[in-house]
């Protein structure tokens, strides 16, 4: 398969990169045609099937939420001492996944990584949907969600205010800010493509609908003039933001005094984990998407390989985090701290712990090898593993730290109920629903950026086509 991609590699490519950023001779017209094609095309059976399954998942989510609201948190397996379990695990997991998008679109943009252009739209959308899923849990996990507005700083007749020393309040601000900014960033990037859809479409309805969202964009040079700057600044702001969000999420634990939570390395370690899982999730979606949407010529093996390199790098960071955690625990000489990590490896939840180690530490190691980095089925499976592993990591951090903390008399076990599980799977269904809709109605790659990239590629010296393999 990889070889086939090479054979097709006729267009100019970076001298240092063995894979082209764009396959085949493209111009604005062809790109307009083939990048928007999947929007005009009638949904095929595969999409419909996937969508049906996703919708079923969303239904399950609604059911689980209803049960939770009607019965109370008691419908979950949470107890004292384990006050947080699946709920916050899912929250952190989704938020983490939400990080890849902004990272790719913002940080890589600042570093002028050209290969980002083909995948940023895709991953930004993923960010937004993931944050939506994540946002459910802080709300749902409260015992009385209908009073959640207490957390907002509004002048009440009680003269009471939120308590700004609490990391949970920081979360509220961080997550809502992150969602807002990601949405704006995404939409801003979307405007030229919406215009493109508006004017490329044949059907009057489509033209009107896309026209409304295009806000009357006409590619004006005077607009581009401000647009470029604004986009750059937003990217600049999103970069520290994306780092801050998971840092603050990690504060939920680092600021407490529970052994296993009270750790100063959490912020970097969480951010690394977030990027790790985020890229994995992008990978899990991109591999099928580029295949079914016919985007192989713009999302090439080059992109996939770069992604795998990042997964490897962040995977190493995460592994280092584990290492440090354990070392610090031992070095601190704090018997409570020490016990927590001993308990993780030998206690009742050790299965999850070892699954985590396998998925997060061992799995990415295969990407040291090029054949693995460029083997599509392999990277797909690996990305799934990483997603599982990162979920396990959050579970291990949250549950194993809580269920056996300071006073042995208070120790207890946590077992999830069907509501817990349905809720988690339901969010995956909800996420997929949104994502499939996105893939259907919005160009999955930033068309105008790709055209710009193509333009740049055209003005390159003669390509050096390295043909490896067959």
């Amino acid at each position: 398969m990889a070889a086939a991609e090479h054979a097709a590699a006729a267009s100019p490519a970076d001298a240092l990169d063995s894979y082209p950023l764009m396959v085949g001779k493209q111009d604005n017209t062809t790109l307009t045609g083939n990048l928007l094609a999947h929007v005009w095309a009638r949904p095929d059976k595969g999409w419909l099937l996937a969508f049906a399954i996703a919708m079923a998942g969303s239904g399950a989510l609604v059911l689980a939420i209803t049960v939770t609201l009607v019965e109370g948190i008691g419908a979950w397996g949470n107890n004292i001492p384990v006050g947080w379990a699946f709920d916050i695990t899912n929250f952190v997991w989704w938020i983490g996944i939400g990080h890849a998008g902004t990272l790719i679109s913002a940080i890589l943009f600042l570093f002028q990584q050209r290969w980002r252009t083909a995948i940023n739209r895709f991953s930004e959308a993923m960010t937004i949907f993931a944050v939506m899923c994540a946002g459910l849990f802080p709300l749902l996990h409260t015992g009385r969600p209908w009073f959640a507005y207490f957390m907002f700083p509004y002048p009440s007749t009680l003269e009471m205010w939120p308590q700004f020393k609490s990391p949970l309040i920081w979360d509220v601000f961080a997550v809502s800010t992150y969602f807002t900014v990601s949405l704006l960033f995404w939409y801003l990037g979307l405007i030229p493509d919406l215009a493109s859809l508006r004017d490329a479409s044949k059907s009057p309805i489509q033209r009107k609908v896309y026209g409304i969202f295009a806000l009357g964009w006409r590619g004006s040079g005077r607009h581009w003039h401000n647009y470029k700057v604004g986009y750059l600044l937003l990217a600049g702001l999103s970069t520290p933001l994306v780092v801050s969000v998971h840092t603050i999420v990690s504060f939920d634990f680092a600021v407490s005094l529970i052994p296993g939570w009270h750790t100063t390395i959490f912020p970097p370690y969480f951010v690394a984990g977030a990027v790790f899982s985020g890229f994995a999730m992008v990978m899990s979606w991109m591999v099928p998407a580029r295949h079914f949407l016919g985007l192989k010529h713009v999302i090439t093996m080059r992109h996939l390989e770069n992604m795998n390199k990042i997964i490897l790098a962040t995977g190493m960071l995460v592994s280092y985090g584990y290492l440090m955690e354990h070392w610090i625990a031992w070095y601190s000489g704090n018997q409570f701290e020490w016990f927590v990590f001993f308990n993780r490896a030998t206690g009742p939840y050790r299965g999850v712990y070892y699954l985590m180690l396998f998925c997060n530490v061992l799995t990415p190691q295969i990407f040291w090898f090029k054949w693995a980095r460029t083997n599509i089925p392999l990277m797909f499976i690996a990305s799934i593993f990483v997603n599982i592993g990162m979920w396990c990591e959050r579970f291990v951090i949250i549950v194993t730290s809580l269920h056996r903390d300071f006073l042995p008399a208070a120790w207890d076990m946590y077992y999830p109920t069907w509501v817990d599980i349905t809720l988690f799977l339901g969010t995956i269904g909800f996420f997929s629903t949104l994502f499939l809709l996105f893939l259907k109605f919005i160009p999955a790659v930033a068309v105008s950026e790709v055209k710009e990239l193509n333009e740049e590629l055209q003005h390159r010296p003669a390509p050096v086509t390295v043909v490896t393999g067959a």
Partner: protein
Amino acid sequence: MTTPRFPLPVLGSSAPVDPPAVELPDEASFAPGRTPGSEHGYGRSYWRSVEEQLHGDAALPGRDQEFPPGAFDAPKGFARRDFLQLMGASVALAGLTACTEKPVEKILAYTKTPEGMVPGNPFHYATALVQDGIGLGVLSTSWEGRPVKVEGNPTHPVSRGSTGPQVQAELACLYDPFRARVLKERGAGRSWRGFREAMRGRAGALEKDGGARLRFLSGPSSSPLIGSLRQAIAQRFPKARFHAWSATPRDSVYDGTALAFGRPLEPHYLVEKADVLVSLDADFLEARNDTVDLNLGFANRREPHHPRGLNRLYVVEPRFSITGGMADHRLKLRSADMEGFALSLAAELGKTLPGLSGFRSPAPLGGEAAKFVAAVGKDLASKRGAALVIPGERQTALTHAVAHAINAALGAIGTTVTFTEPAVLDTSTGRSSWQALVDDLRAGKVDTLVITAWNPVFTAPGDVDLPTLLAKVPNAVYLGLHDDETSRVVNWFLPAAHPFESWGDARSREGTVSIVQPLIQPLFGGISEAELLGAFLADEAKPYDRLKALHAAHAKTDFDSEWEVWLSNGVVPGTASAAVTPSLQGDRVRTAAGQARPAPAGLELDLVHDYKILDGRYSLNSWLQELPDPITKVTWDNVAQVGPGLAKKMGVANGDLLLLTVSGRSVEVPAWVQPGHSDDAVTVSFGYGRRQNTLGVKDADEPVVVGHDVYPLRTAAAPWFATGLELKKTGRKYTICTTQVHNVTEGRPIALMQSVEEFEKHPEAPDVRPPVKLGNKELEGSALPSVQPAIDYSKQQYKWAMSVDMSRCTGCSACVMACQAENNIPVVGKYQVGRGREMQWIRMDRYYSGPAESPEMVTQPMFCQHCETAPCEYVCPVNATVHSDEGLNDMVYNRCIGTRYCSNNCPYKVRHFNYLHWTQDKTQVEKMLMNPDVTVRARGVMEKCTYCVQRIERTRIVARIENRAIGDGELKTACQQVCPTNALTFGSLHDPKTQVSQRHADPRRFDVLHELNTRPRTVYLTKIKNPNPELG
């Protein structure tokens, strides 16, 4: 009944005029038989006459001849206890429906305000509650006539303010919605009046042969009133017989004294005076009506500061009991070998003490036991006059007699043990009197049998088939709180009135009489034992009149005024039995001892009464069912306790269903591997295995049958233990739900224990003392250096704090129950407990140390520590838990949104979360149990110990109105108030003289997890042990 009683507004049967001259706007809401549920119908559904109960409103017209409920209550001064004066109700609503706002609330005033009543301020009434016939003076807090809290009566000589768990939980029985409401004849509803007429006829017939075919089966009683009634009946029916039955007979106590001194006597152990105590399977530290005072006496001697120093406690027992947990040395021994042990101890002492010469043990003791006997003997002999041997109720009469002989020889009699005539009417409540009745029943000699003992069909030994015997009795009458096993086989069933609903009296162990006065009109029209017995007498005097007539004798000057005083104080002065100094009849004991045979070898079954539900009479009491067993921490179940060695041998783990077989009768009980339990015995508590009425517990999938019934294994001959037990694994598992799954401290400095030598070497609690100085800066208490500027509390008038003396705490769990009652803590049910969602604010932590075969036990009541730098507070996003100006860790339920972050960040894990709406489906009756001074928490809200802030505020307001400060001891938290050992103290740290300040300054003081620098306001004092170096 000329004097008008105080009719009840909602009482259908009391409405005199119908149709009413004026159409009352809210007549509908007064209509009888309104379905409960709406708050508006509050307290309305249960005031029903019998017919109404049976046929609904159809029967109402005829109700006027019916004796209205409460017709037999005392005329005077009773109104103030009419709970249904709905002012009370509307006040109560304050507590009941937290966090909801109703458009228009009705407020209903009294029509006639009872004298002395101040709506909104509770009254404290003195009364008494009875356990196995022995009364205990209690105070009941009543809100507009609703008793909502039971505490010990400080003026009562035995209680001195403290009680055990059961007595407090009586309230849950009183307000049990499943109490019987209908008087039945063979299942058909009858009226009390009808019953009386039937009995009158019957009595006439019985009178002919002097009542030869009339029998009474009652529980043990100490009530002079009941005594006088029995005499009166005996006069009318000279041939009638009275039998007493109790599943927890104290026969051996009286038989033992009878054997030793020639007549049954009541021993009183003055444990505070004893330097060395030996308990022969005597669980005298369980806080029961007859032992609460022993708790305090014992605890006082566990303080190293006591002028006479620490006492030393040896316990010999098969199981691991509360007393065993407090022992300095324990010897595991089968009950069957207890006689042998007592005798060899006597023999050992006999070497030096002439009084004990001639005692021989039937069989030589094993190595460990022999060593133990030698050491104990030496210790006892060295402490003559201050030594004491206490035999247990479960042991044989001979063991008791020998113990008395030893005590006599040690010069204990008169110094550490005194004797009085028994306060109870029935010194024989077990085999002998039971057997006589059973024989008569078998012989068909009984025409009328009046049963007032609690549910004999259930508690009967397995070798008697009582139902069939009762079926043969033409006229069996049973008085009970519930429609239970017995009521189904008798032809007359009478719903009983709860002690809080009726007049009566009771005597405490040492004889003091307390008047039992009704605090509330019978909720379900119940009938008291006195009323029932009265039905067999010619005269129709009311119990109240009989009572006054009876006690008029005690009056010195003016009876009526004194009577009022007795009522309000709860004790009748000068009624304590006089001490007698009996002379030991050593030869009788010796001869009896000479016939003692070595106990047969083999596995032994030990039956014990349950720490929570006693003989099962509290098995429908959800408070007690959910209370963790002080030792095993098991809730909602009884278990077969096996020693670790035996468990290993049989490969048994907790929850394995075992088949217990004794002489052909077998039952299944789940196993529980109990550290420190004898490997030659299996201990099971009886009283379980009854059908529950779901107990208003939320979870639908709660079991209907809780625990396993082991009464079938019992025989009247051997009620307490039997050898020859066969144990078989069924291979099936059974879910046991406990509140504590981990039993050792993992070497963490949490619950500290040290020997008295260590303590004297360096008094500081080991490795927990904080740096007293940092640089040249004095640090307050155990404060560690911190970057935070300390909060200054000196400006405030009070600085509330608490202390727990672990040397005193026995783990009896009375405090847990007090907290449950005081703070409206919900019951969650077995499976929710299993999921770690129990709500009791006090978690009685229990840790073992040492080898599992002979562990030491530490109990540590754990509740909110009110840390000055509380970790729970700074993580709350909405300021729902913050510090008060006086240093309380306030939990504001109505602000809480339930993130549970505070609980996660609480290192003590003392916060509890309302995972479900526990109080949602409470019936109207149960709601009356709520303390209106405490918010009832909604679903999704965090809660925890508040230092009884409602008590603080009430006391504060009273003090501030009077412009004075709150004095030490004026303010007590609920747990502190009932603690039998005075292990808990509460007060302000600003005054160095308060007890709490002194304990905070005690060298034994330590802060749990002080290294986290949470600066708890609740501190603990290390547990001090006094081991015998010889047993090392």
